[in-house]
């Protein structure tokens, strides 16, 4: 059971009016290398990300998931620095994460409270929001995704598509300035994939979307191809996808 897609997500009345025009934070990677168990995952990355819609594509094991986790400090580099509007993710991680939201591949592991509304409130409590403001913010965010009716539901009884929308809403309720997605559509059927695609396209904050789903990034401002631990291509979506098809499949 899934609800009809609601009004444009993230653009509900009551949202900060300036949100739609707020510039994306500038994320800079300076000489970033990351290894794991003695194996290099990413090496010598220098990037400056400031576009509103950025896609990241690449094969399994290419390091794109690690790249995503670098952007909000879930992973900090072995060498080099990651700066978000000048803040180092190594020393100011919590502050960075309040501005850079993260949506994971598997919503089962992202929804951490037994009731949907409790899960939505979790991030707001962590931001230190006054208790009396929380229910209003939660209701507003659920409504903006057309899932207000799920507020009192048990998390484990939601469908796959509903879970992914709740996971997305629970990040958006924190009003991040940019959201990083790690393969948000991989586990979804076509219908739910399209709902997530539309939700991402319509939302106010900037987005960095890591995905296998080449069509998802077709309208984006910029697409990176991660290959063998580095950025192999960086440019417009059409050319990036063409490069990826030629060299990686």
């Amino acid at each position, binding site marked *: 059971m899934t609800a009809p897609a609601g009004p444009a997500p993230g653009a509900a009345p009551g949202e900060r009016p300036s949100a739609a025009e707020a510039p994306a934070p500038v994320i800079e990677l300076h000489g970033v290398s990351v290894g794991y168990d003695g194996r290099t995952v990413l090496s010598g990355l220098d990037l400056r990300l400031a576009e509103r819609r950025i896609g990241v594509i690449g094969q399994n094991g290419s390091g794109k998931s690690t790249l995503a*986790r670098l952007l909000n400090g879930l992973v900090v580099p072995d060498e080099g620095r990651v700066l978000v509007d000048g803040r180092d993710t190594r020393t100011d991680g*919590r502050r960075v*994460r309040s501005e850079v939201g*993260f949506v994971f591949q598997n919503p089962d592991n992202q929804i951490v409270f037994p009731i949907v509304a409790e899960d939505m409130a979790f991030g707001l*409590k962590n931001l230190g929001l006054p208790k009396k403001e929380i229910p209003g913010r939660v209701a507003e965010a659920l409504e903006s995704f057309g899932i207000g009716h799920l507020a009192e539901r*048990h998390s484990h009884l939601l469908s796959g598509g509903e879970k992914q929308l709740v996971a997305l809403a629970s*990040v958006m309720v924190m009003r991040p300035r940019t959201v990083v997605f790690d393969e948000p559509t991989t586990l979804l059927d076509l219908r739910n994939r399209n709902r997530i695609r539309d939700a991402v396209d319509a939302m106010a904050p900037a987005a960095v979307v890591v995905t296998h789903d080449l069509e998802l990034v077709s309208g984006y401002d910029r697409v990176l191809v991660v290959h063998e631990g580095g950025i192999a291509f960086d440019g417009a979506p059409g050319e990036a996808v063409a490069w990826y098809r030629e060299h990686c499949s």
Partner: protein
Amino acid sequence: MNTSLYVPGDTPLHRLPAGAKFGVLFAAGIGLFLLAHPAVLGAAAAVAAALVLSARAPLGALRARLLPVGVMLAVLFAATALLQDAGTAVAMLLRLAALILLALAVTLTTRPADLLEFFERLTAPLARVGVANPERISLGVSLVLRFVPEVFRRFQEIREAQAARGLKANPVALLVPLIVRTLKAADDVADAIDARCYPPPRRPSGGARTEENAT
């Protein structure tokens, strides 16, 4: 699992604060072991039974709660009567019945969240010296409630997959993949929690402030 043993209602016991109920139960737990006169113990059991009934829980729920306990008490009664004497056995039976019924009355009329909050306040001195962390405990409790159904579902999936391959139910073959999958999920869950800015900012330090907030 998502239903607690608490039965919503508005009886005098429901209205009593969790701490008061727990305090009485705790005192009774000690007091009843200092008493041995069957008449006194019998009176205590009768009072406890009356308190359980005053909670107006559905009889089916009461039977489900009390039947297994009753069987266990019957076995113990027989054993004590045989090995000791009838007097000791009667005292034991009345004392345990009183205590278990009293505890049941508290459980039936107290929301889990209220008891949890009471325990948190009880351990506040520990929290202040950094031994216990109420923030983490309440996150842990929520995570358990969230993930019991998921773990159980995974368990059934693995069992079905193994049955489809003609394998018999074998605890070892079931538990290894269940635990490995759960441990792997833990990394993602922890990342998801951190990604949403956990832990919350510390409240301004000072115990007095915390106590004000708690009440």
